[in-house]
């Protein structure tokens, strides 16, 4: 099928309008910075705001915690495939109304401004998301898969150990890809509140120094990182989890 590239065309049009309007027609204004200022600031950012270190710090926290949490939940499912089936989802439903700022602040109180505290928070967050997804999906596993395995001579436990991690592995990965943006936002907020590490910390410093232009620079960098991250997750999903039930 022929791609229409509507999204790309829309972005290019917006950039063109922005360039013309704020570079040539309204170079001095209090709405948006001049495009040339953004470019200059982008070059400076690598030294002034230790950009490279921040990118490495934030992406490591997000993707390493995602990987470890995924492997942990999958490992648990391989040993005890029905363990999460006992999670009563309705009993923890009210927890979804708790503002996510609360656990962020709680972790900051417990661990202070440290990369390990941030990593532990990200790991707990992703593990909790995956555990809930596992509990939800376990209730909807096609019973025929298990029945047939038992009929073919496997015990119930053996059948579950062979089948449940396979099916849930795909769904958990999909959940990770779906919640990718949310995880980014929570971690950026954690770093912002922490006033220290990572790209969220850069937001805090840019705001503190009233560096209006730099808010745009860091936003562009983060947008690109999220976009690339999402594309990589989608490619991996298409390669390793391309079967449909």
């Amino acid at each position, binding site marked *: 099928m022929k791609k229409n590239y509507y999204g790309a065309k829309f972005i290019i049009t917006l950039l063109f309008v922005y360039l013309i309007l704020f570079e040539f027609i309204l170079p001095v204004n209090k709405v948006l910075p001049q495009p040339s200022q953004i470019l200059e600031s982008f070059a400076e950012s690598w030294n002034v705001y230790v950009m490279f270190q921040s990118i490495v710090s934030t992406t490591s926290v997000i993707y390493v915690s995602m990987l470890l949490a995924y492997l942990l939940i999958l490992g648990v499912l391989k040993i005890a495939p029905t363990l999460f089936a006992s999670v009563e989802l309705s009993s923890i439903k009210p927890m979804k109304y708790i503002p996510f700022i609360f656990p962020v602040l709680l972790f900051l109180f417990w661990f202070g401004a440290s990369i390990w505290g941030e990593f532990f928070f990200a790991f707990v967050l992703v593990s909790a998301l995956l555990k809930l997804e596992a509990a939800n999906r376990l209730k909807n596993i*096609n019973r*025929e*898969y298990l*029945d047939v*395995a038992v009929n073919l001579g496997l015990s119930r436990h053996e059948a579950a150990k062979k089948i449940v991690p396979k099916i849930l592995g795909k769904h958990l990965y999909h959940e990770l890809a779906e919640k990718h943006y949310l995880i980014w936002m929570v971690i950026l907020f954690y770093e912002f509140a922490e006033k220290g590490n990572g790209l969220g910390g850069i937001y805090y410093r840019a705001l503190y120094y009233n560096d209006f232009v730099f808010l745009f620079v860091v936003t562009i960098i983060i947008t690109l990182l999220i976009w690339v991250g999402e594309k990589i997750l989608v490619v991996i999903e298409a390669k390793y989890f391309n079967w449909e039930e």
Partner: protein
Amino acid sequence: MIELINVGKIYIDEHGFRKVLFKGLNCELIADKISTILAPIGAGKSTLLKILCRLEEPTEGEIRYNIPAPLIYLPAAPSSYPWLNVKDNILFGLKNYEEANFKNAIKLAGLEGYENHYPDNNSMGFRFRISLARALMRNPRFLLIDEPFLKMDYRTRSELYFLIRRLKSELKIGMLITTSNISEAIYLSDTIFLMKKSPGEIIKKIEVNIQKEESLDTFKTDEFLELTRTIITEFKKLDSENQLANLLV
């Protein structure tokens, strides 16, 4: 032979009410013949098959097996594993196997050349063939097949009708097939058990003595149409009895 003696199943539904799914089922399933349970949806056909292959327990009655194991169960929903290719699906759960047996199974199921393909949910006929080949790898003497041809187009369905009849005559495998399709039941079976629902009970046993060719013309023969009419009449009689019973209540 498998003999069912007063088999019944009672369960508690989601509202806590006691429901009789079926009761007093008495029938004999002959080892090298195809028997069909022809019943409306909800009569407990799938549960009965699960009981026969010991995935579930009956709440009353007894089943006597005078047939060598294994009894292989083919459920109505696709049961081939979509993350495994055809070969791995067929060999699933087997610790060792003979290559000749594997080749024979895929040949009989019509899957030659598809060993490395993956099952696609849209192709129900393909997935049924995989389940069938997986069953044949175990050298079964009896197959329990639950509503196999739902969601299949007419062409796929007729190809599989012929395949099942061929397996029965070449390998002498007995089968119990459940269906709610009258023509399907007549074409496939040597014996049909008509079953009603609420609660499920066998109301009549019909021996099918029709010459069956590997052709759809069999469906148009006078004997075939006559038998179809007889079965419809039996179910209609049951419906009118139910209506009368309702009026009396």
